[in-house]
């Protein structure tokens, strides 16, 4: 499940990962593509990686986090959110990798990276897109503790 949309303004890539998300390997490949596309890498790159916590909100040890999505809609909607953020901040490139399925504590759930000509747009776009996907992309989390799964509604505060 990989996808890339060539835009006049920005290069957008969204990937839903069913098996594993290795942020540094994903970033390395993205940078290689960027370097090919732009000659030299843009001056500013801002990245966020979210990982599964070891405990739930009540301090109980977490066995797994489960991420459900809406096949078809989730990836297309993430692409729309990325395009919209990229355009409003005039950045060069955005990449989003998001896990679905069962994820162990410490493993990466989400990677958002933004390359831009200046640090402000890179940071603002990365931050805005992360909030957008947390609140507006069709994902649902279920925490598994002691063999019992509990659906989580909403996100931790910023």
């Amino acid at each position, binding site marked *: 499940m990989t996808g890339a949309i060539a835009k006049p303004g920005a290069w957008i890539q969204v990937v839903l990962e069913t098996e594993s998300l290795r942020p540094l390997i994903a970033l390395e490949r993205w940078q290689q593509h960027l370097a090919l596309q732009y000659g030299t890498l843009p001056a500013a790159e801002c990245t966020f990686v979210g990982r599964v916590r070891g405990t739930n909100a009540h301090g109980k040890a977490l066995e797994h986090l489960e991420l459900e999505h809406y096949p078809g809609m989730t990836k297309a909607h993430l692409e729309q959110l990325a395009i919209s953020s990229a355009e409003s901040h005039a950045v060069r490139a955005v990449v989003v990798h998001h896990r679905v399925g069962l994820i162990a504590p410490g493993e990466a759930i989400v990677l958002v990276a933004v390359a831009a000509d200046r640090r402000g747009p890179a940071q603002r776009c990365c931050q805005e897109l992360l909030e957008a996907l947390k609140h507006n*992309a069709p994902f649902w989390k279920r925490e598994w503790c002691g063999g019992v799964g509990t659906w989580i509604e909403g996100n931790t505060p910023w």
Partner: protein
Amino acid sequence: MGNSEDLSEGLTVRLFASLREQAGWSERIWPIPCDSSSTPADLWSSLGLGQGPMPSSIRIAVNQHFAAANQPLHRGDEVAFMPPISGG
């Protein structure tokens, strides 16, 4: 339910996460009346997904785009009811 298995005559309804588990199903074909303009809010009531009107926390998608509870539905539409989102 008559023609409810005929996609051209009805809607595809999809439920996700806690809504799916509470209802005990994830996808269903549902007939749409010929002469009325049905909405997701009507559909919610018809499906018996909860007591009373649809909670405002429920998100709706029609044909895989977010939509309002009063958007008119048409035959062949895919309608999804989604509990509050928790991504990233």
